[in-house]
């Protein structure tokens, strides 16, 4: 198992390097003069030339890329914000926990609602619950997140006055954004859980468990659920990426001072080091979540574990054979 995790960790290194190259290249190709953005329109050509030289923008692409990767990896240096002059890393680090909080709340709601609705729908296929849940999930998948957020504000803040429409000053401020993002992604989780469960509960080993007289509840929980969860875990991992993208929109709709809103605000002020750093951090988070998903696989799917055990045994056997020779 540790070998599997080690292998997955090693495989992440080129992916993260690739992400850094992409993010840097997008920023490199962006039109506009960073020196002018720092100094403003009234800057003299001499001052502009000096700042350009100081920032190393006259260097070739590969030199700049190497310096960027070196700074990120060894110094955690993502540059400085054009707007505030503060290090981007500090600016991002202060806002990132808000986005993580929103993502955790949303994923929890998504898993709780999506998985339980999916299980009930599959075990009671074609029942009224199944039909209602399937219809809702279809509507949920079709709804743009930001519009769902606007409708939630309209209903629960403007019309009913139950919850605040924007900001993040207390727990009640998190309800609408978390539920909007969470319920939206729960639609996909529900669809996946339902179809995966339907496939599993028709399997022979489930029939065997039932034939042995095991209670239906335990057949579902101990036998069906674990196997049905394998594709669901993939979807949840992928949904996390969607949630990170969605957080940019939802934080904008609900004026939550997280990393997503900061990136969007920085796009409008053309503060590209912030955009670059923010996108990089979100992409790294997504990769780490995918790594966690892969590790979870090994727990859920014993075939992965046994694959590594078998390889180990084979190696051990070969060594023994060699020593006896």
């Amino acid at each position, binding site marked *: 198992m540790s070998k599997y995790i080690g292998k997955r960790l090693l495989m992440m290194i*080129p*992916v993260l390097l*690739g*992400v850094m*190259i*992409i*993010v840097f290249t*997008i*920023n490199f*190709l*962006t*039109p506009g003069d960073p020196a002018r953005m720092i100094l403003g329109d009234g800057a003299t050509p001499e001052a502009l030339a000096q700042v350009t030289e100081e920032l190393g923008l006259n260097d070739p692409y590969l030199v700049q890329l190497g310096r960027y990767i070196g700074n990120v990896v060894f110094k955690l240096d993502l540059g400085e914000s054009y707007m505030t002059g503060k290090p981007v890393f500090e600016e991002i680090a202060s806002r990132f926990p808000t986005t993580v909080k929103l993502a955790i709340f949303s994923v929890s709601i998504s898993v709780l609602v999506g998985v339980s609705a999916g299980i009930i729908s599959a075990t009671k296929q074609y029942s009224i619950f199944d039909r209602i849940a399937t219809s809702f999930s*279809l*509507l949920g*998948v*079709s*709804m*743009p*997140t*930001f*519009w769902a957020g*606007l*409708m939630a*504000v*309209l209903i629960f803040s*403007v019309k009913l006055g139950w919850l605040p429409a924007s900001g993040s000053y207390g727990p009640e401020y998190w309800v609408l954004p978390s539920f909007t993002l969470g319920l939206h992604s729960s639609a996909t989780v529900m669809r996946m859980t339902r*179809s995966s469960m*339907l*496939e599993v509960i028709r399997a022979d080993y489930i029939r065997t468990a039932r034939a042995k007289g095991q209670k239906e509840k335990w057949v579902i929980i101990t036998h069906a659920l674990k196997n049905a969860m394998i594709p669901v875990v993939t979807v949840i991992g992928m949904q996390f*990426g*969607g949630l*990170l*993208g*969605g957080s*940019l*929109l939802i934080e*904008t*709709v609900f004026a939550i001072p997280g990393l997503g809103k900061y*990136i*969007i605000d920085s*796009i*409008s002020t053309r503060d590209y080091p912030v*955009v670059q750093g923010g*996108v990089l951090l*979100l*992409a790294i988070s*997504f*990769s780490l979540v*995918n790594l966690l998903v892969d590790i979870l696989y090994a727990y859920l799917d014993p075939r992965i574990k046994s694959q590594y055990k078998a390889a180990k045994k084979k190696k051990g056997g070969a060594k023994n054979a060699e020593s006896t020779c």
Partner: protein
Amino acid sequence: MQKAHAETGKTVKTGFWRDAWHRLCKNKGAMLGLFLLLALILCALFAGVLAPYPYDLQDYSHTFEGPSALHLLGTDNFGRDILSRIIYGARISLLVGFSSIITAIIVGGLLGAISGFYGGRVDNALMRAMDILMSIPGMLMAISLAAAMGPGLANMVIAIAIADIPGYARVVRSSVLTIKDQEYIEAAQCIGASDSRIILRHIIPNCIAPIIVQATLGMAGAILSASSLSFLGLGIQPPTPEWGSMLSAARQYIMNYPHMCIFPGVAIMITIFALNMLGDGLRDALDPRLKN
């Protein structure tokens, strides 16, 4: 291909596409999706005839009006007819959806075909590149590309297409891997057909079924991304009517004039719903083994 009908004894024409079409016709959801999509395409094509007003006609004596006989879905802050803007907006959404998907299919499909066909180092290099592209969430990728390239229709199409390329590359690659060992490919190689001819004439046409499914579902995602980008001010700019940018402009009036926010969102939802239903139906029709 022909086979005898069991009861009537008449010969009935059959074939992969004909069978798939029959299966699709039996799927009510898919048919509803197809109907809605055709209606949207007609709306987009004949927007000039169907829209009651020009999309940019400003009438300051009728601003912020709710739905009425004169303006079925009300008017916006400039007194423009919301229904007309939604009808014209279908043009932009479908155009962005189609063009970004076609771009992604061409580039992703070719990369996937080359990767699957040649295998080895080429496959490894291309697929690792796709893995890296996929490790950035699609929406985040589209936002950062759109932010770098600036707003506009063409830039938005490119941004969405680039984010979609890895998905198509993977689908085509996996199809190619199953197809390339078939005997007819071997036969083509034996008679001296070039690699490019084999890929373009024999392999890609046989990958069409999974590409169609992915494209239909992908188009829903592309339209959603386009409206999200416009909502953030990174896509289509006003006064061009686009559903996302209409919602972005309507956001500040949500307290007093909610109708401005409701209808463009409903239009997006109907479009995505139609494409999802059709995509699901096509997946079941083209690969009946997947159906639950």
